[in-house]
């Protein structure tokens, strides 16, 4: 029983370190540098993460940053980190990426790899034997543990597909709600790494069915995972809502620790759009290096900007474009273009007086619109019925012709 608790505790930690925003408070202290506008400090960034996610984040940065010294730094740290673990496949990959640029200390260490592989084989054999023994004895709990160990084993060696299979297999041997949640968390963790976000969503909902046994931390973890899944599926609205739920408890505290983001949100709600967008602009370079966000950043940025534009114009009957351009730190011409696109898209109901540079809100005249629609419908009905009568007559004619020929 004790071992089980331990296992789940360990797993919890791993999920923590993987998630983006739900680190325990003591870790949040260290988070600050990530979100700052300055050049990313890889060392500090990497220190926030452990295990696989640290490695994959480092490799991701190395792939994306486009700066040789930064890239090598990231790869060096990834190399060191991998050596602590047992994932030889990833190791080869990183060595290939380093390509000897970091000197002889960072070359393909074949003796290490062999040793690890050998150890892995031994362990695998041992696990297999154990599992077979459990299965013959038909002790559910032990079988579950056996599969779980197998999952852990594959996970640490980078065989994610196999790890996922084994974790899911434990499902048949779950006896308590806690076990199910544990299984779901494992599955979610592996799925996120595999990029299989459809699985994430389904396991999150599965875990959430066991409402009573969920402690607040687990709930936060689940919602965070769901948020990520929605992000990948480009359902930004859902993602944002989920994220907000997590933030609720510690939202205030949390913001205090990340002043830039706090300022940003504050500015957004109190309509200081220019400084809000400034903050966003500063953060952009580093957010681009985030493993989950980078694909969506451009879209999210335009949407934030559009949202700000819409919010700005919403309460006014008329808006001076010069002032608005100031507020958004842009030129009147550029602003006009942006507004034009939004109006065409029907996101803002207004028209631009480009002569006097004023935006006027436009209120739809319901009465006129109704009249127009009625007349239009009438014309269409008229036309369609006539066409229908004609077609009916033609068919009748054709039919009569055929019939008369037959006779």
């Amino acid at each position, binding site marked *: 029983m004790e071992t089980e608790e331990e296992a789940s505790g360990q797993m919890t930690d791993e999920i923590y370190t993987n998630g983006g925003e739900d680190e325990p408070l003591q870790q949040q202290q260290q988070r600050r540098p990530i979100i700052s506008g300055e050049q990313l400090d890889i060392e500090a960034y990497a220190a926030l993460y452990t295990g696989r996610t640290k490695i994959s984040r480092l490799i991701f940065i190395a792939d994306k940053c486009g700066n040789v010294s930064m890239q090598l730094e990231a790869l060096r740290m990834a190399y060191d980190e991998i050596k602590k673990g047992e994932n030889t496949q990833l190791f080869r990959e990183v060595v290939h990426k380093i390509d000897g640029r970091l000197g002889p200390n960072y070359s393909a260490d074949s003796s290490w790899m062999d040793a690890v592989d050998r150890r892995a084989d031994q362990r695998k054999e041992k696990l297999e034997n154990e599992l077979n023994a459990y299965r013959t004895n038909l002790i559910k709990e032990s079988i579950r543990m056996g599969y779980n160990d197998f999952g852990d084993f594959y996970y640490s060696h980078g065989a994610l597909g196999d790890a996922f299979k084994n974790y899911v297999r434990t499902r048949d041997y779950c006896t308590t709600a806690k076990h199910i949640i544990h299984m779901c968390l494992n599955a979610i963790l592996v799925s996120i790494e595999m990029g299989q976000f459809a699985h994430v969503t389904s396991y999150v909902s599965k875990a959430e069915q066991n409402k009573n046994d969920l402690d607040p931390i687990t709930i936060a973890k689940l919602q965070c995972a769901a948020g990520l899944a929605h992000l990948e599926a480009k359902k930004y609205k859902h993602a944002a809502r989920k994220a907000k739920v997590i933030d609720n408890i510690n939202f205030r505290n949390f913001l205090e620790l990340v002043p830039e983001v706090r300022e940003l949100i504050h500015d957004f709600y109190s309509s200081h759009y220019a400084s809000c967008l400034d903050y966003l602009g500063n953060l952009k370079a580093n957010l681009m290096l985030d493993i989950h966000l980078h694909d969506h950043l451009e879209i999210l940025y335009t949407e934030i900007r559009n949202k700000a534009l819409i919010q700005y114009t919403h309460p006014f009957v008329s808006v001076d474009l010069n002032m608005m351009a100031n507020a958004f730190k842009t030129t009147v011409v550029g602003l006009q273009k942006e507004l034009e696109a939004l109006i065409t898209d029907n996101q803002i109901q207004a*028209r631009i*007086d*480009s002569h006097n540079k004023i935006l006027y809100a436009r209120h739809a005249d319901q009465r006129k619109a109704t*009249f127009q629609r009625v007349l239009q419908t009438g014309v269409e009905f*008229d036309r369609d019925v006539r066409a229908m*009568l004609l077609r009916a*007559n033609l068919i*009748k004619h054709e039919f009569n012709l055929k019939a008369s020929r037959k006779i």
Partner: protein
Amino acid sequence: MNLNVNSVDSLVAEIQGLSGSSQDVNHLNNLLKQSEDIIRSQPTTFATCITQLDPSLHSLGYLYILEACTAGPIPEPQANELVLSVVRFIDVCSAEQIRLVPDKFISVCKRLHEQVMVLGAPIRAVAPLLTAIRKIQPSSEHLTPLHPDFLQVCVSSKCYKIGYSILEDDIYEVDQPRDFFLYCYYGGMICIGQKRFAKALELFHNVVTAPMSAMNAIAVEAYKKYILVSLIHLRQFSATFPKYTSAVAQRNLKNFSQPYIELANSYSTGNISELEAFVLANQDKFENGNNLGLVKQVVSSMYKRNIQRLTQTYLTLSLQDIANTAQISTAKEAEMHVLEMIEDGEIYATINQKDGMVRFLEDPEEYKTCEMIEHIDSSIQRIMKLSKKLTTMDESMAMDPLYLSKVGRERQRFDFDDFDGVPQKFNL
């Protein structure tokens, strides 16, 4: 010969004598049918004695002789004379009498059409053919075989306005699908000439979606023009057919109109230089199809589309800005387009030439004038009439023996196990 002369004389006498009451005329019709061979065998003899007949009084006899005279090949010098006499006949003949032999009347009119084309003066047939249609038409809802001829001479002589007058009648009764196809095709061209694009679209649409069992050239040409007019008028084109379109048309029309479909695709991108390049590259194709003029209108409608979009977003905009956003080369040209659109009632705007500003206005229609109410009322009346017609047609269809026997047969075949079987003796 003598006997022939006698019979000619007696026939003329019969015609003169039996053109009074409708009973007499019916009797005369029978007589003439019997002697039709004689008339046909010596058209020249009869041609001389036709002068003894009054076309307004002795229309039936006159028509028999006229038809015989025009049946053979006509030497060119006589063409003019022939046209004159046919025109005069159409003008004065008695509708009641000629309706006894509509085929003859129609063939005479078709000869007239032919001859004016030979003479290179299609305009001479415009008025007579219109009169002819009115005389032979049982009601304005009937399509006659003369409709296509009339519309064709109108197109040839550019008499769009008078051609359009006949298109305002709603046609429901059709005898020959081919007549109907041609009617819609030429009618559509006349509407284009009159810039009545909505009506043109409706007519071409009728051809494209008409029930047909085999492809025909009229439908293909109509479809091409349908695409172009749709772009000009609606500023977009939807390539999906309505579901009642015949399967043949759905399968084949697009293959026959490839460059036009591509033109529509290029149009939808909104890029004017791309569209112009495409038109230039395919100019000969459009020219061969006699559609180059329409294609050019498509291009200029793209400018208008772009300008119209601006009216949704701007209250005022300088001509230069309009030129820039709508991809028009000069402000002067932009002004021309805007002016044209104001004149056509497509947009509501004023141009201030002093500072080169255009002020876009809202639709000034308030929907509260007497005229507007009357207009709405008449639309309602019209639609009520249409619905009634629809109901009547539905009822008559439900009682049509041919239809019922067909439906009865199919029900028997398909619902073999049904217990509420259709009565065996459904054939009324």
